[in-house]
């Protein structure tokens, strides 16, 4: 019901997870980079603080698990839409256990939990883009067709269209929702191709917000009761050109959030939280 009636981006809760000490060394990455763990911790702290204090969300903070270096990237562990939560089966075997804590947290939030029982299916939440009207699911190194099908089964109300991820880790490594019907998209060719695919698949015309840096296209959009459009986006220090684009958005509460360390292990802004809209009366 919520999903069908609430405005897109309306959230009340967020699930986040702390960064384990193993993060710096153990977190998976597509390119070798040295992570400054302390800096990463500071970043994450700030990120959580924004959600909690600046935006007033109920933040559920899961404890870190040293055996799961990537556990801070909770987005991959679950896809929540409306009252339904799909607990995923992450593509990286080392991350499969991340879902346990997530599942428990979501259960405590009284969501309808759907699990991926199929051992052949993999799905990372980072490959799932929910536009408010439909899902796009990136078929990537982490997400396969079967995973996409299970996503479709879990959210039957919505169209689920697969999008090949030709480059980058996840679909949301180069795009995200920046507003209702507004897709932020990187300017790289693979990103633009993916956008074309999405447009072709959709009955709806999405607006496109192209930013020069792919990873900067990953931002966090919310529509909060007392704040209206809220956007967490990259800082101008990290991605000056892209930041400029976001800063042109009108009527937005724009909150630049630094992400320089997590990005080294392919972590983007959306990766660090799972957003939930719980109706108060429920």
């Amino acid at each position, binding site marked *: 019901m*919520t999903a069908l009636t609430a405005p897109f981006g309306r959230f009340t809760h967020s699930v986040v997870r702390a960064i384990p000490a193993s993060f710096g060394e153990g977190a998976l990455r597509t390119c070798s980079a040295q992570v400054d763990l302390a800096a990463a911790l500071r970043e994450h702290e700030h990120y959580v603080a924004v959600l909690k204090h600046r935006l007033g969300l109920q933040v559920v903070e899961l404890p870190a698990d040293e055996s799961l270096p990537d556990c801070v990237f909770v987005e991959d562990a679950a896809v929540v839409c409306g009252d339904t939560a799909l607990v995923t089966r992450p593509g990286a075997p080392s991350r499969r256990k991340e879902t346990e804590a997530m599942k428990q947290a979501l259960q405590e939030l009284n969501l309808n939990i759907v699990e991926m029982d199929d051992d052949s299916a993999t799905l990372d939440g980072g490959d799932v883009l929910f536009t408010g009207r439909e899902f796009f699911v990136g078929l990537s190194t982490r997400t396969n067709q079967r995973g996409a099908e299970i996503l479709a089964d879990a959210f039957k*109300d919505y169209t689920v*269209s697969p999008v*090949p991820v030709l480059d980058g880790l996840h679909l949301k490594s180069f795009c995200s929702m920046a507003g209702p019907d507004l897709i932020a998209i990187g300017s790289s060719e693979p990103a633009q191709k993916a956008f074309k695919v999405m447009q*072709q698949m959709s009955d709806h015309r999405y607006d496109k917000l192209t930013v020069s840096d792919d990873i900067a296209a990953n931002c966090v959009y919310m529509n909060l009761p007392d704040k209206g459009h809220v956007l967490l986006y990259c800082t101008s220090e990290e991605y000056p050109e892209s930041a400029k684009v976001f800063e042109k958005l009108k009527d937005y509460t724009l909150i630049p959030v630094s992400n320089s360390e997590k990005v080294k292990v392919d972590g983007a802004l959306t990766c660090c939280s799972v957003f939930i809209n719980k109706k108060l009366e429920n």
Partner: protein
Amino acid sequence: MTTEVGSETEVKKEPEKAEEQSPAPEQDAQAPAAEPKAEAELPCGETAPPGGDGDAQPKAASPEKERKQKEPSAGKGISRFLPPWLKRQKSQSQAEPREAEKENQEKVDEQQQPGQESAPKSPVSEAKEAPGEELKSDDKDDKHSIGSADTQPAKEEKGDESLERSADVKEKEESKCEEKKEEGETPKPDSGTEKPLLKAAKKMKTVMCHVTLLDGSQFPCEVEKRAKGHFLFFKVCEHLNLLEKDYFGLSYKDAADQKCWLDPAKEIKRQIRNSPWQFAFNVKFYPPDPSQLTEDITRYLLCLQLRQDIASGRLPCSFVTHSLLGSYTLQAELGDYDPSEHRLEYLSDFQFAPTQTKEMEEKVVELHKNHRGMTPAQADAQFLENAKKLSMYGVDLHHAKDSEGVDIMLGVCANGLLVYKDRLRINRFAWPKILKISYKRSNFYIKIRPGETEQFESSVGFKLPNHRSAKRLWKVCVEHHTFFRLVTPEQPPKARFLTLGSKFRYSGRTQAQTRQASSLIDRPAPYFERTSSKRVSRSLDGAPVVSVSDQALRGDSSVAGDKENGREPALELSSDSKSKLRVQGENIYVRHSNLMLEDLDKTQEDVLKHQASISELKRSFMESTPEPRPDQWDKRLTASPATSLRLQAQGKTPPTTDGPLPDSKDIGKSAEDKQRSGTGEQAEVEIEETVVIKEVKKAPKTKDVAPEVVVGAAVAEEAKKEKEGEAEEKEDKRPGGGEASSSSDSHSESEEEAEYHPQVSSVSVDQIKEEPEEEEPKQEAPPPGADPIASAAPPRAREERGAASEGAADEEAHNGHTETRQGLVSVEEDEEEEEEEEEEEEPRLNGDVSRTETERLPQVICCSEPPVVKTEMVTISDTFAAQKTEISTKEVPIVHTETKTITYEAAQLDGAGDSEPGVLMTAQTITSESLCTTTTTHITKTLKGGLSETRIEKRIVITGDSDIDHDQALAQAIKEAKEQHPDMSVTRVVVHKETELAEEGED
């Protein structure tokens, strides 16, 4: 009754088909007209026939025609004798088990027979009978609904009727006698038995239809055996008190248990074949925004459909949505939640989901509590607001396979065609992207408009389980496209869509039209009862039951049309479009073949010369074919996500295809080349040619449009003849037509392919004619005898012909003279007169052609076919297809399609013409078919600035193998067109040639 009649009797009745067809529409039409008389003569007292038969028509004008038409059918003999025999048997063996069945048949036979027999009689007698039929069927309906609505109502009824109605026998007898006189063959002994029966049956063969309504109830309805789909449909709508009926339709299960839509324009019997007369009333076009429906009752019915869809799993929903929708259902049906009486058990009557859990029921109840105070209508509206957002809302799924034999689903919806693999949407083709929809055998193809960065159109093919399913999908696409996309508010009258290669077309109103019509609905909200709960939606007592306005509309229009030309109603009734069209087709075809003979008389030299020029043109087409551009190829691949393989035939063999691609070598070759080289591997060469011929006649009159032209006949010439009193001639052909129509059934069955060009470009839109129903009332129609013909067509108009052929097209400069911007087109290839001019014109022609190729002239675009396009391909698969490097084509044949389009347009003196549509007065579309040609003729009359203008557009599709001389056929067609309309000028010629090479045997 239904079942038995359907199957058992079918065999026997087969021979009668032909007879039944032609008369059927007449009777419908006549009934109302004759009504007054009938009332007087038939004390039966039953009320007037339903509005649906409002196609009254002046009988007097056409008695002779009718006789002609009917005689042959009467001559068929066997069928005539059947009924009496059956009757006798029946009376003897009342108790026999088969009896009911036989009686049914008998009844039917009787009913029909009288009608037929009486046909030759004076108009009066005919009129007399027609109403009788109507009355009778009404009676039956009543009876059924009251009492024995079930399986074997026939028997009971029969008894009742014969008793009850014996009083009415006299009239029947009279007519009977007359009939006998006429026929002389009717065995006398039968008459005794027949009387009561007759009376009961009132001379029409009827069949009991059972329609399952959306609330699950059965609606028995007796219809004439030859009734068209819309008759039954209107009956049902009337029963439901539904005005916004265009979103709905009747479906039936075919022999393969596939759900098929009953075509309103065609006879029920021929559609269902041997299936039982069992139908379901369903939503056919799901309104994307139900809130725009005018009436609550319409929304209610839509809700019922959706509840069904949801419960059956056809419309998948999440748990939450199931619960939410269920809660609205409860609110609508039960009203506010009442803790005292509403416990969980009260949910047992409802099915909210395919699998309903306790948990869900609890959720439903919980949500139900929130809806307190909502009226049923509000709850329905909320239900729909939520249901319409579901991804599969209004998506009609069809099983298919992609090129690799992978199972996919094709979903037809308001926006276009969707492709699903498992639960994922892997591609989508919006209507605006689709240039052409076609099917060939069990393959279904869509031709895609090139994107901005793409130069060539491409085709995507899918394999359907069988030919019938391919055709069914094609039809659904044509209908959805027409309904949802075709009519823009600016051109409401141009709703009609034409189909090439098949007679099928969507005969209803489009969404735009129905919305417009709905906005005029002015009646108190009708009372209706929610059957599951008996909850009343509105209780406005005395809300008049508004008769179905549409029917009236239809009636009017046909009346107008009929009166104008005094033609056989059958001609005008859209209901029997098939046989009608068939008739026309026969005529035309006959003429064509004559022409062909004539043409053969031409000097061989001329022919050769012409052929040569064609060849030359073809070559130039080939040569000027743009170089393959890898970049674009790549773009295309990536641009369309899921579509897998798009091979462009631009002389480039895609590296991706290394599979069985015997055809690939042909890429880049012209059809001609292919034929010549006799590519051994090609199992089959198919060539389709489409010729669009448009003629415009402008009469300097103000309001008058020659009615003859309007009505009909596909050809102005015919109208003229009629004027001259030669109408008979035309009519003479009708009997044959009747037969033809019966055979046409099988023909249509064998019809292996059809295509549809959804993209109606501006020009073609203009060319598209209105459906007859949309014709304006007669007042507006021009006085008969108007001589658009005479006045039009200055002699010079004749000279003006743009001629085009695939290769050789010539345009005559004089086109400019016509005061009209007459877009006429004629296509000609080897007319002698043209030959002379050809030389002068050729340069220009070539110029045009090349322009076409390079710049894509608007005209060309109008044709909806880009200049020279050779496309090849087939396949669609999943999203990764674009990335795949290997594509196997074993399942679906690779089809090489070569398409050429040449457009020729006469200079237009009044440039404003085309942009200013004027007032459409009448429009009509006629399709005819012969073995290898399909001619679609559109006649529109418009009133522009005080001038009435008649445009005739012909589309001739020549289909066939390489053995057919297409050039020759084309030439004939052109010549024919010119001859048929000597006084019109040709302003536009479009030749579209498409050659396909397909591998055989995949079927």
